[in-house]
């Protein structure tokens, strides 16, 4: 038991909204906004499981990979309180639709196993990380492909901007919920505060995704 319980694991906080942080109206709003996407995604993965059972383990490993990234202790990476999410990578490999369910599973496990995020804020977090992020990444990847941009740059931009968009959406969610009448100003405030950690992390996410893609095409 010791070997598992005391892995050098620590919390590294990404841009997840903590349990109970949002007022009830916004918890409800984002949960409802997210629900149709989740239903669509579950329908899609149900069909995919039936179509090709191999997809099941592919999705599982995507989810497990994203979770593991978030629970890894990286020694002495000073100033980092965040981590890459692997969502952009997933979106490029399996498409954005299954990533919505995969992202939700990851968020659920993060909330329950590493107290990162929450249940009442699951809707809000999933909307930014599992819906907008993968959609942006996938859209950019496909869009840039049509424009004839080279693979490496496409992958980088897709992952980088996808990760940034997740953080932008979270800032907007927080801004709207705590605006006190000044929505734009408050959103800008949150964007500014979290920029310090999120921009380097998004860069790392972009780089990581490029490296993985190179390794995959080598192998």
């Amino acid at each position: 038991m010791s070997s598992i319980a005391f892995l050098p694991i620590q919390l590294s906080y990404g841009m997840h909204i903590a349990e109970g942080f949002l007022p009830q109206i916004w918890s409800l709003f984002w949960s409802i906004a997210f629900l149709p996407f989740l239903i669509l995604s579950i329908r899609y993965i149900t069909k995919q499981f039936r179509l090709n059972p191999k997809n099941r383990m592919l999705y599982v490993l995507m989810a497990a990979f994203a979770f593991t990234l978030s629970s890894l202790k990286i020694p002495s990476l000073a100033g980092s309180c965040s981590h890459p999410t692997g969502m952009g990578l997933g979106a490029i490999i399996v498409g954005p639709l299954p990533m919505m369910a995969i992202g939700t599973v990851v968020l659920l496990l993060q909330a329950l196993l590493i107290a990162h995020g929450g249940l009442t804020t699951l809707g809000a977090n999933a909307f930014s990380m599992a819906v907008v992020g993968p959609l942006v990444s996938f859209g950019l990847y496909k869009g840039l492909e049509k424009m004839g941009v080279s693979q490496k740059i496409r992958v980088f931009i897709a992952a980088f901007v996808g990760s940034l968009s997740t953080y932008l959406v979270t800032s907007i969610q927080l801004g709207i919920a705590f605006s006190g009448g000044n929505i734009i100003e408050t959103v800008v405030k949150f964007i500014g505060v979290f920029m310090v950690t999120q921009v380097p992390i998004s860069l790392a996410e972009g780089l990581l995704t490029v490296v993985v893609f190179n390794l995959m095409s080598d192998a």
Partner: protein
Amino acid sequence: MIACQGVSYHYERTKKGIENVEFDTSEGNIIGIIGENGAGKSTLFKCLLGLYKPQEGQITYKDKPISYSRKGLVELRQHVNMVLQDPERQLFYNGIFDEIAMGPRNIGKTEPEVKQIVDQCIKMIHGEDFLLTPVQYLSFGQKKRVSLAGILALSCDVLLLDEPETGLDPMMQREMITIIRQLAEEGKKVILSSHNMELIYDVCDTVYVMHQGTIISKGPTDEIMEQTHIMKKAGLERPLMIKAAEAMGIKPHTLAMKMKTVNRKESIDTEEKS
């Protein structure tokens, strides 16, 4: 060179760990650590590497207590380092050169120095033949040797090997033994943990027996491994060689000498045929 004085380390919740461990490398160049799974072998290794800080006792390198500052640990690990059991989990690059060069590069060696170090390490692991093969096409045994070379590149003088023979077929095991012996001859201390009693009996000068976090016995390998009650207590079995000698009513040493003749004859036979 490296030694433990009364070292205890307990994991927070399970209270397991190691208790009052005395360990030193003064006797013998190849030192074996044996015990069941969970007896504390890897906890001890992690303490020796400064990965865990003992709650009691101290660890000394060349008679000085080790420092747990970032700088102190980097210093320590240039002298004391470990090869993990599973090579798959310690190879990061596609090219063997880059893989072996990783450690030296990280501590800021210049490229000509790196080149020299890598060449040397390749020689030590007898890896000249496959130097240019991408890592993913290597056999398990070759990967294991490359991961050893990656640590040798740090030119440390104490080398911890975690189950160096696991997963190797008999020929590769023999090659690994040859390499271990060579390292010891060059003056390095090799500390190895293993479940293979024959291997330990074959290569180790000294052996430490662990059981439930404590060292229940230490001494010259042949003396310790002959003692049924110690081995039984530790959940181990005496090496076949010793049992066979007992069955025949002779000394294990005598059998070992006779076996050497057999082995020598065998290799001569094979050479003649080929």
